[in-house]
C-alpha cells in the first residue's frame, strides 16, 4: 500500500547520487512524493526558505556533506538558524564518528551512509513517521 505523500529535499552535488536516491525513494513506496533537489548547501538553504515562505515546508531533508559553495554542515546550521525543525538526515560516505558528531552538532537528526537504498530510506521514513 502506498504511504502518504511527503515533500523531500535531496541535497547532493553528484547527479548519480540524486538519480539513485530518487529511484530509491520511489521504490520505498512514495510514487507521489514531491522530491526537490539541490546541488549544494546554498541552494538547499534557499529551497527550504522558499518552502517555508510558501507554507509548504519539507517533511525531510537528505543532506550530503561535501559540496561546493556551501557544505552540508553549514547548510544544516543555517536551516536550523531559520527555526526550521524539519528532520535533516546527513548522508555521507564518511561514517567516521567525528563526521557524524559534526553533523549532529550542526543540527542534523540522524546520519546514514551512502549510497542511499530503498531499505535505508524505508528505515528513515519509519523513524520520522513519514510512512
Amino acid at each position, binding site marked *: 500500500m502506498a504511504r502518504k505523500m511527503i515533500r523531500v529535499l535531496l541535497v547532493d552535488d*553528484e*547527479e*548519480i*547520487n540524486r*538519480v*539513485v536516491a530518487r*529511484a*530509491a525513494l*520511489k*521504490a520505498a513506496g512514495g510514487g507521489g512524493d514531491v522530491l526537490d533537489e539541490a546541488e549544494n548547501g546554498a541552494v538547499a538553504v534557499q529551497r527550504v526558505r522558499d518552502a517555508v515562505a510558501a507554507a509548504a515546508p519539507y517533511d525531510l531533508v537528505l543532506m550530503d556533506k*561535501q559540496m561546493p559553495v556551501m557544505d552540508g554542515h553549514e547548510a544544516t546550521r543555517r536551516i536550523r538558524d531559520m527555526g526550521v525543525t524539519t528532520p535533516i538526515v546527513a548522508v555521507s*560516505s*564518511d561514517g567516521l564518528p567525528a563526521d557524524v558528531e559534526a553533523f549532529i552538532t550542526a543540527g542534523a537528526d540522524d546520519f546514514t551512509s*551512502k*549510497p542511499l*537504498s*530503498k531499505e535505508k530510506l524505508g528505515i528513515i521514513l519509519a523513524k520520522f513517521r513519514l510512512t
Partner: protein
Amino acid sequence: MKKSLFDQASILFSGLFFLSTGYLDEQFCQVEDLQDEASPNFVEEVVTLFFKDSGRLMSNIEQALEKYPRDFNRWDAYMQQLKGSCSSIGASRMKNECMSFRDSCGQGNVEGCMRSFQKVKREHAVLRQKLESYFQLLRQAGSAGAATRPVM
C-alpha cells in the same frame, strides 16, 4: 540464439559478481532492483552516468596531480568524490583502489598516490569494457526491449 545470448550475459554477470572477482558488489543488485517497467533502462542509465562522472573526476585528479604537487588535501577531496561515485553503482574494485589512494594521501606518500591512481584508471577501463559488453549482450538478447539482468 536468444537463449544463448542470455546465457552469455548470465555468465558475464556471474564473472563480474558471483565469481568473487569483485568488480561489482551488492550495491549493483540494489540498483537493478530499482529498475521497473516505468524505468526499463534505469540500470544502464545509471551506469552511463557513472562513467560520465567518473571520467570527469579522474580528469580532475590527473590535472591536480600535475598542477598541485603534494597537495594531498586537494587530491584526497577529488578522490573522495570518485569513491562516492563508485559506491553508487557498487564498483567495489575501483572503490578499493580509490581508498588506497586516499590512504597514501594520508601518509603523504606521493609515489603511493601515483601508483594507486594508475590502478584506479585500469580498474575503470576494465569495468567499462565489461559493463559495455554486458549491456550489449542484454540488448541483443532482446530482454523485453530493456537491458535487464537475466534471472539467476
